[in-house]
């Protein structure tokens, strides 16, 4: 290109423009931060275009939005995305929610603008990647917690969000000691359901067997936390409300 009277003939398909795009791609693929100066210097060295012509090409690429302003995400920038910001707020407000529950809220959102499961998982992964949240596995459920929340506290929140678990625990708070059969009678659910949950609670170390009569009691070291969480739930009327992802 001897004389770059480019401005008159520049289109994106122009070979000179394509050569500059290739250089930009190379910089980005090598994980370097691309900026006008770097692109200009590299292209100038390799393509030997005159200054004005090269600047016209870069200008065209920005004008046609082939090059857009932006850089690799920093931790602060990750929450600039409204979807992620609202998702993070939701996970902070409703500790112990599991993936299925979050997803359910999104699928049933009437606005229809919240995208696919894939998109939700992408945003969860981004929040994990930048240490905003972490995931813990509880039985078959994946629970997402704010990064700074203790796993044990997360587990308690998860358990207490379940109506049957909650009933069992409330019974043990008011009665101190109960047998499995007594709990089953009082909760009025299928035997297998109750026994399955009781076994889980033992496994989670939330309740324990007491004495020879196989009575169940609350783990005393967790009792205060449990009462506090239940009180907070009742104060906040903490039913999971619909996610409002469309509001700022």
């Amino acid at each position, binding site marked *: 290109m001897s004389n770059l009277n480019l*401005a*008159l*003939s*520049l*289109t*994106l398909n122009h070979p000179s423009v394509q050569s500059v*795009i290739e250089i*930009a*791609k190379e910089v*980005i693929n090598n*994980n370097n*931060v*691309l*900026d*006008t*100066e770097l*692109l*200009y210097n590299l292209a100038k060295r390799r393509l030997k275009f005159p200054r004005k012509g090269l*600047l016209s090409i*870069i*200008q*065209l690429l*920005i*004008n046609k*939005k*082939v*090059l*857009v*302003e*932006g*850089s*690799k*995400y920093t931790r602060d920038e990750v929450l600039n995305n409204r979807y992620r910001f609202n998702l993070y707020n939701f996970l902070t407000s409703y500790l112990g929610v*599991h*993936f*299925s529950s979050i*997803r*359910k809220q999104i*699928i*049933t959102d009437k606005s229809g603008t919240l*995208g*696919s*499961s*894939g*998109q939700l*998982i*992408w945003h*969860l*992964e*981004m929040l*994990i*990647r930048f240490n905003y949240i972490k*995931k813990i596995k509880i039985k*078959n*459920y*994946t629970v997402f917690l704010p990064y700074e929340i203790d796993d044990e506290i997360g587990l308690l929140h998860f358990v207490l969000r379940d109506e049957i678990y909650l009933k069992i625990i409330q019974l043990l708070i008011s009665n101190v000691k109960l047998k499995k059969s007594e709990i089953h009678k009082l909760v009025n659910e299928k035997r297998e359901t109750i026994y399955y949950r009781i076994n889980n609670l033992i496994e989670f170390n939330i309740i324990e067997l007491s004495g020879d009569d196989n009575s169940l009691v609350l783990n005393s070291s967790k009792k205060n936390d449990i009462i506090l969480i239940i009180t907070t739930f009742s104060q906040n009327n903490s039913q999971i409300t619909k996610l409002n992802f469309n509001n700022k």
Partner: protein
Amino acid sequence: MTLNWTPEVVVAFFVAIIGFVLTITTYIKPKTKKITSLNYIRLAILVFSIFIFIDGLSILYINEFLSIISGFILVPFTLSLVIGVTYIIKENFYSLGFVLVIGLSVLFIYLGFQPNAVTIKVQGGYIRLPWMGLFGNIGMTLSAIGGVFIFYWGIKTLKNAPFLIKKEAYMFFLGIFVASVVSMVFYVLYLFDPFYIVASNLALLVGLLIITLSVMIEPKLLYILPFTVYRIMVKDREGYPLFDHDWSKSEISENIFTGFINAVQLMSEEIMNIGGLLDIQLKDGILILHESKNITVGLITSKSSKLLRSSVANFTRDFEIKFEKILMEGNKDMKKYESAQELIEKHFSNFPSRIITHKRKPLLLTELLLKLPLSLDRDLKTIFKDEKEYNFIKSEIFRTPESTAAGFISLYKELKKELDGIENEHQES
């Protein structure tokens, strides 16, 4: 008759010649010539060249009358310079400088007719014709006002020069600095030693040379201050965008912009005839709309002016001619209209682009041009059936740490079981 050739005369003639060249340059180089502010600046340069030429002649011929005439020419020079710079900044003639120059000029002209306004003296070994007394002081003050305004213009131009022409703007500012500040410093020293008038004129000469050179290299320097042109958009009569071009980021949102164009298109028969122009005052600028047979063109700018309106009208006309065939076919493919770029160059070439805000501003390639590793791309396409969503995730991947995409795929697989459960449940419900 013996001519009084002195170094001051020679330098004065050189300065005058450079001044004339600069006047012609500022007329020839820019493609758009009718800008009020620039007409005044051009006039100021021309008048200054005449002033310095006659000043040189007065010494050459040792003629007091010519010296007084040259003094009088200082009045239109300062006045046109002050008006030009004020007009560039605020599209208005009036400023404190304007009132000051008018007041001083009346007194200056009166004093010029008084005896002994100019005397013939031997200074520094050469015959000179210095302005005397109050006439000399006011002449010096007028020159100083001119210097201050030129310097102010230089600073504003440098400050507002976009990245693309910053290099030339520095050169332009250097010229202005030498021609105003350096020259004025020598002019003040002239009060103590007449030799410094030559140094002052030499500084003017060098400054003007640099200014001329920078304007020849980049005529857009003269258009930095009068307007900021933000954006132009061409739509067909059905409202489909055919072409758009940005000069700089505008505060006016896309919705307002397209909304106005659509509204005007709907009401066009009532508010403007085909071929008509309309200015809409928006909060952050002016939208100039032009309607023609097949297209509507909207230009957003900081100020409206006759020049911009005629540029829009001419651009519209040429767009219609250039793309007549595909416009008649109703072609809506924006790629087909990309070559309208040359019409931008033709009609808006003087307006500098501010689209590159800073040379170190990080940039990314649009996700449409970026290529992911094949297996990752395949996985993503399986997960994201919607193209918009796929492109969004792709653009995010390029902004995240390297292993994020792999982490995502693994998390997706892990959650898929839970996911399928809910989706089945949802379908059943």
